[in-house]
């Protein structure tokens, strides 16, 4: 189980699916709207731009 979870070739897109929409929300003190649709869209736009430059 340990070696399987540490698999290296995780794509950023798959990771952001989970990190921006999943994970337990612990009501942080410096609350960020990273789960907010707006930032996700901003992130995706940044991603697209960045991928396009490669």
């Amino acid at each position, binding site marked *: 189980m340990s070696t399987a*979870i540490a698999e290296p070739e995780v794509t950023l897109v798959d990771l952001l699916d989970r990190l921006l929409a999943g*994970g*337990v929300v612990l009501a*942080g003190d410096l609350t960020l709207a990273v789960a907010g649709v707006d930032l996700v869209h901003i992130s995706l736009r940044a991603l697209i731009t960045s991928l396009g430059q490669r």
Partner: protein
Amino acid sequence: MNASYTYAVARPFRLDLLAGLRGVDGAPVRLVRHDDLVAVVSSVPDTGFDERSLEALPRLAEVARAHHAVVAGVAAHTVTLPCRLATIHRGDDRVAAVLRDRYPRLRAALDRLAGRVELGVKVYTEAGPPAVAASGPPAEVPAGTGPTAALGGLPSNIHTDAEPPTAGSPEAARSGRDYLRRRRAEQRAREEGRGAAHQAAERMDAELAALAADHRRHRPQDRRLSGAEGEHILNVAYLVAADQVGAFTAQARALAGGGLRVEVTGPWAPYSFAPPDEADEPAEDLT
């Protein structure tokens, strides 16, 4: 001033098992304990995080990768409840207070995740439009107006080069009608193909969900981000018993075919199976 960035809540484990694993910006990872829960945290400058900074892709990617590395490292050793990206408190005492306040919920969530991992299944249509059962090869231009006219199956309409059909001629009208009819047939076939693909994907999801303890849908990914071929029609996370990963993966792959392609990712720490937001609880002393 430093703040505490929390990666995950977990059952207690020996920190030295992480062998010096570093978190965001290379900061060493430590544990904040309350009863039989630990939070895995590292220090970040309390001014270093805001929405603006995470809008920059390189920074977002960096933080996401660091977050994931710690979560995966912890999940390799103990039951782990990953936190949402950029969960930041003013200090370790605040983190401990959150563990104390949320104790029953966090304990219950960990109990539910014990011995289970997350697998991602992505279903795509095969690249390219579905085969069209129309007669004759597909035409990019109306028959009779381009060099492929002779291939359009209408040899009787081909006049001499000196006298092509004019816009008002019956031949042009007919080839225009043929063209539109063909385009409509193609469109219909595409829509039917898409509907059938979605139905097949739904059946696939139902079959896989029956093998899983839980399942959660994500939005299909934008092709510009994934670079994947075909249309992404299903993006689901399944919570699967750790000793069933091989069987589940084999089953998911066996469901491919019939114009659908299946990709399995993971095993992941159970990111997609955190308990829902506690939005109903009042926010505490937010600054």
